[in-house]
Each structure stands twice: as C-alpha cells, then as structure tokens.
C-alpha cells in the first residue's frame, strides 16, 4: 500500500508520546485504509508542537493522473514554448512517453540570448 498524506509531527520528535490505548492488529484487513487514520479510530487531529503536511513521493506521483489534475489551471498565461505550443516545440501528450529525435543543440538565435548566471 502506498503512502497517503501523512501529517507528521515535525518538531519534538524525541519527546515520548503518551499513547492512551493500544490496538492489536490481527490481520491486514484491520489496518486503516488511510495513513491519516489510526486503527480503532483516529486519536489525534493535531499533534503537539504543530503539524506539517508531508507527502511522500509515491503518493505525489500517484496523484499525477488524478482527474483533478487533467484540466489546466485557470488564467494560465499564454507563453509560447511554455504554456502554449511553440512552432519549434512538439508538445508531448501527457502520460505518453515518446522518444523524440534529439534536436540539434542551440540555434544561433538561442545563443545570442544566452546568459550564464
């Protein structure tokens, strides 16, 4: 099972917590569906010292194809070659991996704008 969002205690990790009760797990079916809940009911909605919303990589990657991520943001500015098609740039369809032939490095026009910072 992959990681769901985990609100982890960010500070004072060394401080031992008083856990009010223990829940014995006898089979995987008793595990919660979501890491943000705990078996037998969620104990804390906040943690002492404040919480930080942490997401693990696996979960973030899963969300890439969420239906909610399929629509471009509203009011996205039109920037050729970035948010809009550029004549020189072939857009890749989201999710498909198309090996494009490597373009020749740098046309002269590009070079004249180059700035190394």
């Amino acid at each position, binding site marked *: 099972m992959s990681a769901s969002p985990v609100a982890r205690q960010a500070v004072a990790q060394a401080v031992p917590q008083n856990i009010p009760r223990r829940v014995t797990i006898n089979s995987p079916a008793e595990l919660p569906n979501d890491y943000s809940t705990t078996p037998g009911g969620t104990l804390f909605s906040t943690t002492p010292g404040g919480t930080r*919303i942490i997401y693990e990589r696996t979960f*973030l*990657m899963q969300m890439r194809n969420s239906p909610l991520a399929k629509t471009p943001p509203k009011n996205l500015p039109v920037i050729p*070659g970035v948010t809009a098609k550029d004549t020189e740039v072939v857009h890749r369809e989201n999710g498909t991996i198309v090996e494009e032939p490597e373009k020749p490095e740098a046309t002269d026009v590009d070079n004249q704008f180059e700035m190394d910072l």
Partner: protein
Amino acid sequence: MNNKANHSVAFQNDKKQAKGEEESKEHGDVSPEMLIKHPLQNTWTLWFFKIENNRTWEDCQMEIASFNTVEDFWALYNHIESASHLKLGCDYSMFKQGIKPMWEDEHNCRGGRWLINLNKQQRATELDNFWLEVLLLMIGEAFAEHSDEVCGAVVNVRSKGDKIGVWTADVKKGESILKIGD
C-alpha cells in the same frame, strides 16, 4: 557563499521508480481520495524566465501560476513544457509564495544554494527527472522541520550545461542546510 555539491549520485535511486509510475493505470472506479484536493503546507509559485531585449532582468521573470494543493501542482505541471524543452537561456523557478526568484529578495539574501550541475547529455536523460524530484521534495515538505529553510528552486537551461539550484534561507543555519543537502 554557495554550498556547492555535485549531487547526481544521491538522486539516482529515485529516478528508477519514475517510469513505472508514469505509465500507471487508468483507474476503473475512482476512489474518493481522487476527488478531494490534498492541501500543501505551503503555497508555491512557478516562474518562467526568459531574457528579452529592452526589459530589466527582473521584468523578465514571469509569474506563471500559484498553487496550494497536490492536484493543482499536477494540473500546472502536466500542462507546461518540460524543463528539457525550454529554449536555451530560460529558467523555471518554483518558490514559496511571496519570495521572488532572485537573490535580492529579503528571504533569499542571507541564503545560499545547493547546486546540481548537469552535463549536456543529461538534459535528455536526467534534467526533467531531477527537476521533478526537487519539486516533489519541496511541495511534500520532505525536509521535515528543515523545510522552513527552503525558499525554492531554480532550473537553468544553458548551452554550457544545465543547473538545478535549491535555495536556502540562511547560511547560518548550517545544520538545516546540510540536512537539506542530504
């Protein structure tokens, strides 16, 4: 003042997983988890930089969009060109909202950066993966309590070799900076 590091090695493990997940499934039934937006700890702003004649450097930084949920991050990322396809001389930057992608910003001026230098061949093979990893580390707050020391990150697409920098807030916070570098 820069904390320079050549970091390619550390990032390579993560990369291997990326492919499989990208190809992953079109879901038949949609779980409720897919319908709720997942809030991020911070609101982040994506910037695009392209030098234009008769504009100041600062004016060449264009704000693309801000987001504060996982889904809105992907909605943006899925609909913009990948870093490796930007023209030479262009940058993407992603910073916490309110921090401009320039050293002069009060949040950055006491800071430094971790730098990943890529060679020319790595643009095709690694640049997009590394950049995405950095973005995911930042929005997921993977540096735990040290995440507060992270201001943002910049990818420079250059003919001499691309660079990815993670900008930190305060050079005096040595411990945090080293943890971020790990």
